């Protein structure tokens, strides 16, 4: 479960995230939409405990990320827009490093190759250096890390930005699959189409505030676009 309780972050007195209240249940994909500078990445940084909140609390699996940084990160996975791995190591070696770092049980080549296969990366590629990977392949290693560490929560920051439609679709399928495994997912994105397709709920963020939350079941693609544009023009 991912929770924000009156979560705020101010930079030099200017609110980047303003009294955010949010609960994402296990198995739910919540897509955070908003213009550049709306506070999406700051929200993710707060959940990662990369920055301290000005007030309020960010929680992963009911644990405060500030009070329990190690425990919450064991339960948390993070896939940024660019999954930057160690270029001189293979996909398999990268997965082993990150899963060991996370204290994951899977460690043998067999187990890790199985995890990479679940994430859509075949063995032939898994044994190549990451320096030769496309962005989509690196995203798959990111998903594999999430699977290997059996994360309960996943933070995605613009994950489909720059991916071709096929790769973006493949990635969305993987995200949906993770949600079906019970992972609570917060995805910050500009991609309204993917948000509607992948998310269970969407939230529109503006000037650090969550100005509207909607259920994707009740919206068409056009409705979502109109709501988004209306908020952007206000």
């Amino acid at each position, binding site marked *: 479960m991912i929770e924000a309780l009156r979560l705020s972050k101010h930079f030099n007195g200017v609110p980047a995230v303003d009294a955010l209240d949010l609960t994402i249940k296990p198995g739910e994909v919540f897509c955070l939409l908003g213009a550049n500078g709306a506070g999406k990445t700051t929200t993710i*940084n707060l959940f*990662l405990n*990369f920055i301290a909140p000005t007030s309020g609390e960010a929680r992963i699996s009911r644990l405060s990320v500030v009070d329990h*940084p*190690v*425990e919450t*990160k*064991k339960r*948390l*996975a*993070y896939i*940024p827009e*660019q*999954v*930057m*791995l*160690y270029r*001189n*190591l293979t996909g398999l070696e990268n997965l082993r*490093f*990150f899963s*060991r*770092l*996370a*204290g994951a049980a899977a460690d043998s080549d067999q187990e890790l190759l199985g995890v990479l296969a679940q994430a859509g990366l075949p063995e032939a590629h898994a044994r190549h250096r990451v320096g030769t990977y496309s962005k989509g392949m690196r995203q798959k290693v*990111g998903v594999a890390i999430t699977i290997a*560490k059996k994360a309960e929560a996943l*933070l995605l920051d613009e994950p489909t930005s720059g991916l071709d439609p096929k790769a973006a679709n493949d990635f969305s399928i993987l995200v949906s699959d993770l949600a079906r495994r019970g992972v609570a997912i917060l995805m910050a994105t500009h991609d309204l189409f993917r948000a509607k397709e992948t998310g269970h709920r969407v939230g529109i963020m503006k000037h650090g505030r969550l100005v509207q939350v909607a259920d994707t079941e009740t919206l068409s693609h056009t409705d979502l676009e109109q709501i988004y544009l209306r908020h952007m023009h206000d």
Partner: protein
Amino acid sequence: MVGFLARHEWKLLTASAVMRLVLIVFFLVIGAATLLGTARAARERQTYDVFQQRAAQQRAQPLSLRADVVANEKGWLAVVPPAPLAALAVGQSDVYPSYLRITARNLDALVTGDQIEHPLAVASGHLDLAFVVLFLYPLLIFAVSFDLTATERDRGTLRMVLAQPVSLREVVAGKMIARVVLLAIPIAVIPVVIGSVWFATAEFVVWTVAVLVYGLIWHGLALIVNARGWSAPANALVLAGVWLMFAIVGPATINLLIAVRYPMPSRVEAAVQARAATQDATLQGSRQLGQFLQDHPTSANVGRDGMRQFALLQARRDQQVADRLQRVEAAFDAQLERQQRLAGWLSVLSPTMVMQDVLLDVAGTSANRFEHFRAAAEAFQHEWQQYFEPRVLDAATLTPGDIAAAPVLAYSPEPATAILMRTALPIAGMLIVGLLLLLSGFKVYERYSL
């Protein structure tokens, strides 16, 4: 966790082709410096052994039994034994004489210039392990540490790592440990492997500890610069400046300050002055001797009394020379002492200067060792003079028993414990500074922005 991160970092470092090349060059330089030093030390030991053998032979079978010949013309050649770690540092051994000719007249200290190496060799210096440790080791520490986290932060890898249950402090500690070990192992192990049992001594243990402690200071400086959060090129630029300041410009400035505060002639100039003093006194003495020889044109009319008179004249001339020499040497030594005292205070501003003193002291090639030898030689010269002077003035012919009863210089270098005690304080000081720098680095890293 830190151990795991250190092993991971080790793997990354050794996987880099550039890093492998840099390390291979470093290994080769260490190996070459150790090999050259070992060969040089072997030559020194060989020379020392030859000197000792010849001296023993000469004592057993003297060519002459005339007191003045034995006491003054042959004299006693006091040779400083090779230092235990001479192979690791040339130090002052190319400036200070490694032997002193002792006669009943004086101690040829400053004027013994024939054994000093070629000035060009002294000016350009030797490649020894001390040079590698003092100058190249810090440079290499900076070369492998200028990009601890900057590129990983800029590329986003650091965010991926820190999204796992690990702190930035642990990540940085792992990186530091990998680098400390990667560079410390060759500098500590290669000399042992190449020098084999030569270095299995307490001095070498202290040498190694000093090297590791010295490394901590440079690692600490690198950590602080990295913690500021600048880009990798900016870090490299700043660290290059730090190296220049502490290793090159700082010591040069300190030397300049000392030279301005206590200007003094160089050792060579002092030797020239000493020679001039000797020549003046010799000229004066020679006039008196010339007069004596005019009065005694053939040896037949000299007689024993004449010989005694001749010896007395010589002794007077020698005393004049000794007095003039002592004044030149005393002025030189007093100024040198003032310089050394000031250098001792100012050297704390440069770890390279502190470390140089420690390394040379431990290696046995510092000025301390030669001063200790010189003091022992001086004490022996008094004994030698006291024993032979009455016999020379008496123009005596010595018996084998007289020669056997003559004083013998059994020189014992300074005990290792005294050297270790002397170096303990600067090593402890460097350790404290190194640890403080590392702690400060980790403290500054707490504000590191991702």
